[in-house]
């Protein structure tokens, strides 16, 4: 398992979680470079298909991080994201992929250390799970 280098994508909203990731940097908190952040205006904007694409393209884990509950800059975007994450967990497990490879977190912009903790938490979790079961099988592409 030591040779396994997971790939983890973090979709973070600019208002809170992305800012928390920035703060983790300012505080020089260290986490595994396997975690890469993609910024979005609001986690409520993240489409089901975007998350599935991440897995199909080889992400071993994905997490979505939005504002604290009740503090979404767009009122309810983070809660919509949470519900989509719950739904996607079922979609993934139906397809034979552990739903816990996807997770939702809520952060304020001041929670830099929490961001680093989450990055570590997800890294440990995904390491424990091993490579995404898709990553052994080449895809045949989308016949679009």
């Amino acid at each position, binding site marked *: 398992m030591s040779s396994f280098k997971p790939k983890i994508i973090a979709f973070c909203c600019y208002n809170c979680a992305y800012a928390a990731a920035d703060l983790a940097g300012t505080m020089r908190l260290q986490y595994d470079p396997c975690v890469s952040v993609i910024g979005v205006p609001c986690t409520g904007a993240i489409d089901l298909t975007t998350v599935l694409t991440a*897995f199909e393209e080889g992400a071993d884990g994905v997490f979505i991080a939005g504002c604290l509950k009740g503090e979404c800059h767009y009122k309810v975007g983070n809660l919509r994201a949470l519900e989509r994450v719950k739904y996607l967990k079922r979609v993934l497990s*139906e397809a034979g*992929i552990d739903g816990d490879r996807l997770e939702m977190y809520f952060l304020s912009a001041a929670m830099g250390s929490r961001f680093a903790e989450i990055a570590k938490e997800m890294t440990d979790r995904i390491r424990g799970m091993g490579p995404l079961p898709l990553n052994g*099988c080449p895809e045949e592409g*989308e*016949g679009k």
Partner: protein
Amino acid sequence: MIVAERKPLAEIVAALGKCRKVLVVSCSGCTAVCFTGGAKQAEVLASSIRMHYRVAGVPVNTGTVAVTRQCDREFLQPIEHRLTGVDAVVSLACGVGVQFLAEAFADLWVVPALNTRFAGGRVGTTLWEERCRMCGDCILHLTGGICPVTRCSKSLLNGPCGGAAGEHCEIDSSIPCAWIHIYERLKRAGRLELWQKLQQPKDWSRGNAGGLGRLAREDYSE
């Protein structure tokens, strides 16, 4: 509109069997509106199918295509070019669309992705409820606009059964008793006599009991 729900993935892939080139066809009609058959759900399903097979070590090729209404042949013709080499088509339409698809392309293996549930409408942001059984013999003018055929669990035509608990149906306390509502509505309208009149046994032959339904335009014959 027709309301349908997604089948479990296991059922769909079981029906696909050994098919390796699969096209998922969405419908921009009713099933898109009830959030089960639109282009987004087609992409989610296509992705699920690909992942399912890849987990099993068998790569499959899937694509998606959108159809305005699968229940119209004319809307199906434009996807013909996408069917070349396709082993199976998964349809996100209601049962009507699935069959039209099968009829339009005689040699095509068609798999339904949805269970067609009922004819109904939206009663909450994300909740749909049945309103019509398509009995072919509408009596809503006698029942204050509330259909007992659909909304009474026993489709009674002459009033409530004895099981109604309070205002609710005996089979589910979250369902209001249709007849109590009909009664109150008629009473409010001063039209109770409509209910007091004996409603004779219904002519079910106009609905699904009467064999294949057919309807022709009266002012135009082919």
